[in-house]
């Protein structure tokens, strides 16, 4: 299971890469591994305003559908079309292939998320 230093992680296996008020959001390697072959991705519309805990999209495997949740309040600025055309990219590299790029309402909210070390421990339980 891969992780990357400098990212924040949620209990639902999303990762966040913060850059001032902007952030990339995706699913972790742990998530893609548990899902198996990913065959479908649904992403929100550009301009959507989503709150923390709201469903931002869906990642589906052959066997199951898995909701993806917003780790903090924000507005969707960009979405990654390549994973819509080729969902398997998420299996290839879950960190390289981000899902959405948002403008955060309050970057302080991210303090509630886990650090890399905390996430590794969380997954090992």
């Amino acid at each position, binding site marked *: 299971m891969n992780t990357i230093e400098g990212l924040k992680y949620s209990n639902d296996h999303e990762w966040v890469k913060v850059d001032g008020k902007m952030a990339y959001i995706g699913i972790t390697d742990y998530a893609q591994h548990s899902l*198996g*072959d990913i*065959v*479908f991705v*649904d992403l929100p519309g550009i301009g959507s305003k989503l709150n923390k805990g709201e469903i931002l999209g*869906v990642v*589906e495997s*052959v*066997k199951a*559908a898995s909701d993806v949740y917003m780790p903090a309040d924000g507005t969707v600025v960009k979405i990654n079309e390549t994973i819509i055309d080729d*969902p*398997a990219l998420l*299996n290839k590299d879950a960190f390289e292939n981000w899902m959405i790029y948002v403008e955060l309402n309050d970057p302080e909210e991210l303090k509630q998320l886990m650090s890399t070390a905390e996430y590794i421990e969380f997954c090992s339980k």
Partner: protein
Amino acid sequence: MKALKRTVLYDSHVKSGASLVDFGGWEMPLNYKSGMVEEHIYTRSKAGIFDVSHMGRFVVSGGEAAKFLQYVLTNNVFSLDIKQAQYTMIPNGNGGALDDAYLYRFCEDEYLLVVNASNTEKDWAHLNKKIEEFDARITNKSEELAMISVQGPDSKNVLSKLAGSDYLTEPVKNALGILDFNGKEVLIAKTGYTGEPLGFELFVEASGAAYIWERLLECGAMPIGLGARDTLRLEAGLPLYGHELGLDINGSEIPIFSCPLAKFAVSFAEAKGDYIGRESLVKQYEGFKKIMERDFSGLSVLPKIIRPITLIGRGVSRAGCKVYKGGREVGYITSATMVPYLKTEGTGLESRITGDKALRAIGLALVDGDVVPKDNVEVEIRGNKVKAVIPPYHLKSDAPPFARPIIYGDEAGHKLESPTDYKTKALNLLEKSYDNTLWRQHETINLIPSEQSHSSAVRLLSVMDPSFRYAEHKKTKSFYDYDVFYYQGTGFINEVEHLLMEEMKKYFNCAEAETRIISGQMANTAVFSAMMDFKNRVNRKKEASRLGYVLNNHIIRGGHLSAQPMGALHDYIAIDPVTEKAAVVNFPVEKDNIFKIDVEETKKVLEKYKPELIIFGKSMVLHKEPVREIRKFVDEQKINTVIMYDMAHVLGLTGDYFQDPFAEGAEIVTGSTHKTFFGTQRGIIAGNYNKDDYKYRLWETIETRVFPGSVSNHHLGTMLGLLMASYEMNNFKDEYQKNVIQNARYFAKSLKNAGLDVAGDPSVSYTETHQVIIRVGYGTGPEIANRLENNNIIVNYQATPEEEGFTASGAIRLGVSEMTRFGFGYNELEQTAGYMADVILRNKSVKEEVKELRRNFTELKYCFTEDDIKKSLEKLMSTF
């Protein structure tokens, strides 16, 4: 928590990195390291192996084994031959299924029933209770016997490697075999749950299973988990108990006939007698028939049916999603997910499967009976309605060796370029015909065995005046069987017909000839029609009974399609009420030479079935037919039968160098007059009945089944041409026939020396006819035939007796009669053999060399070429 059960292959799964899950109490691989998508694709493009040892395996034996199985299963056990399997269901008393299952008959007195893993205990309890009323035993062999499935286009190659034998089973679905893998007996069945046209299930002793599994992996098979097993069967439209059978989402029984595969699993044969659920199934069947005929008045009997469903909009549907049509809720999805497939490019036989993966959201749904293919529907996914459609199917397996995904919306299109004005169209047509004629007559080496070229005289006569006239005539008893003609201006053609009949009788040395028939298959149809008419001549007041049993050569063994139930025999063959199959039995073939009829085994078949019609003749033919031996046998045994020889290909070889059918004891000969015979394209029926023979009535019936039964206009132009051709035939046949057969043998030997795999018996130089057959590799026939055509060598691709169908053809079929007529001798055939080897083995281009060789052989032999003939032909041409 109760420990999960493990199959004998558990350790192998762990070794292969399987993700294991609980499936019905068994610890089974969901997928391996490659993942479900890759496993699905690998099975469809190469070969996947599945551990299915968790399924239940019961053996039923005893005096009343069949009777018991007729009672507890829905299918007709009496139609199960030895070495055959059938799909079946275990019915409950309410019209639903306790389980679906497969019944295998490897030997005469024992039946092997395979059931779903999740229902094994329930089925075992039920069958043990029911068997108490019968003199039969049921044994649970699930532990003793392991089961491995091998599916995919490479499955045959993989298993042949393992078994050390090319022969596994007969190349038809549900055939069984018993093999030896390194001293271990392995039962093999041509069955499967993936929709792959090539696939096998193996039953092996548990202790030997791991060894065989490892060897299969070594031979290139990939292990496939239950995840891909489910996507494969879903794509193939196959039901899964608990989804398409059993209880529906509301806990009610799904009627057996809601599942469209029911028509293959349920029998109402009288011989089956009463069985569990029969009454309810008979009612359901009426409802099913109505739905199939789009009659929605009977929906109360069978209200819902399983249909395939495809999403058009974005999303993934899942089991449980509701389905709507026109705003109304019509049902729900029973199974669905995203299923991968490989894209194809090109069309038809030339289409190529690419390496590009794609996904489609497909499934099966239990919907109201009036939801039909092409209906637009909607599926509710997580609160949203997504557009969907009902396709006729998701996958087709009629072009082996690949199962082909059928993508809704893709259609084969034909774009023909065409100018708009008719004069230009006419001119183009003339120019193209000229080019085509030159190409085929001067530039190519024509080796298609059913083709011949015609002399200029024959060609010209075919388009002279009578070719647009009528000359219908019928023998009239009042005039002592003289023909009465219905048209005027028929004096010339009347003479031509009589002359033609005489030439044909002379050619065959027989009593009668019917020349009005215009093709070989039509000749056969007329004979079958006459036989049926003759059979019912005593009682015309009831519906005519059809023919049965009929003994023929199966199409797989080279029998012509005329003699098959799918061909001319279609409307004349009876259904045996006990087996519910066509009353046809096939000539057995020799073990060491599948191109030759096994006479001793045929005698046993004759004694058992006493067929009323025996049809000799083949379109893939290397040997004489054993007419003499069989005639002798049926006469000795006093079997009342008609011996017919559809000479087709070999009509032009009738005589001392091949066979004399009437001399050997045939009563009726049919054939095409355009294969080894010198043309034109027509048919012929010849008979040898004396006017005193009671069967002479049969001959007269044949004549009336020809006219007015088959033809009204009998194509007088080609009849005139045929008379000339029969003059040529009768005059030149000794030289022609001798040379054709000698050439075929020399050609076969040359091809063998050039490194090609020539089929047949080397001790007779591979052939006794005009044909030579070369094996080029399973499934490569069409491609090789194309390659040869690109090099101006024209041959047929051919499925040999081991192949499933023409798209899987592994051979090419050649005939030397046309090139012999153009003057090819040993030298030219040896050269041709060399060129063919260059193309087939070395993929070289030899087009120019072939054209050069053909250039000096464009004059047709065995026809009249003297000056006075030439002058006469010029006169004919001047009438244009």
